[in-house]
């Protein structure tokens, strides 16, 4: 069965490519992320692959910390602390 299966294939398995989508959309945008969120997460993944001490130095450059408050008719609302990119803008 396996002999006839491999002989009958016109395309070798290791050259198999899926058919092109007519209008492909990025998966992260479908998940609700912005491009900056995607790029930052990719950067975080790359930094995680580093070895010490470069890893600690790289992560020191990725700290986020500020307080966000919205205004309504010149009245400032409560402050919210933002320490992760996912909390920004929410």
């Amino acid at each position, binding site marked *: 069965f396996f002999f006839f299966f491999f002989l009958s294939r016109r395309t070798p398995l290791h050259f198999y490519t899926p058919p092109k989508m007519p209008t492909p959309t990025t998966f992260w945008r479908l998940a609700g992320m912005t491009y900056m969120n995607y790029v930052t997460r990719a950067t975080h993944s790359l930094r995680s692959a580093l070895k010490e001490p470069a890893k600690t130095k790289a992560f020191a450059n990725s700290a986020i910390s500020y307080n966000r*408050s919205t205004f309504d008719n010149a009245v400032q609302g409560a402050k919210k602390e933002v320490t992760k990119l996912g909390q*920004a803008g929410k």
Partner: protein
Amino acid sequence: FFSQIIPFLVMIASRAPRAFLRAASALPSSSSLSPASTARPQHRNMATEKQLFQQIQSTKNIMKITSSMKMVSAAKLKGDENRLYAARPYNKWATTLTGEPSPVPEGADIADAEFLDIPDNSLIVPLTSDKGLCGGVNSFISRGVRGMCAKLDSTGRKSSVVVVGDKGRSQMRRTVGEKIVSAATEVQTPYNFDLAAAITSEVFAAGRDYAAVVIVYNEFVNSATYKQVYKVITPMSSTGPDESMVEYEFEPDVKNEVIEDLSEYLLCSHLFHSLMEAAASEQSARMAAMENATKNAGEMVDSLTLQYNRARQARITTELIEIISGASAIEG
């Protein structure tokens, strides 16, 4: 009798001048015994001397603090300058797409600019600091944004503001408070690209339908000079008569998505570069302010020391006069 008592009196006067003077002042003298003549100017001079001495000490302490703050700012400026020079080449592509920042003419104030290149329905993002004692960096930006909003309003152009920095928030809350949408305060330093990405998210949270984002910040020229500039960043279009980058082919062939990604990255890149410039400008202004404060404190110490010495010498002279007058009165 007098020839025997005079040396004794002189001895007492030398050992206990105050007690002697009190006793001598009780004797009738040629001057009238009005309350003014029996006033105690030496006590007033001594209190003034003490106050002057305390003022000198406190001013010297302040001078030490401002001097150390100047050295700390100089060290931080070096780090901020290095980060800025490393970040500038990474923003060249963004400047190619949007153009150079609009500077203010030499010697002019940003509040006097015309802002003709800012369209209707713009979002203004001023970059200010959280800490004070940094000269005029924050007040120039606040005044510039106030002038910008006034000029836009006078020509019928709408605008909103997203403030970065506590000092700018407190000043602009009074002047353009009704236009502020949100504020980011207590921002951690040193700035980095992830922080710029977070602030980009805040800008997008204020609304995606703005015709332009205008970043107002201080551009670092050198350690003694900075100037206020603003950047107008308009979103790129993938269709229509204003289609961007028509000479390029896009892979994958979804130009609208790639243009949207590029717009986000363009804004983030501009924000990051502006944050670097603003940080270096803030440190240079703080260093200059602390240097001036130290110099002024030193001048104040010098003038107070002169006053203190004059007061001290006047007191000593008064005491000598009173001793000699007392001795003369006894002899006479």
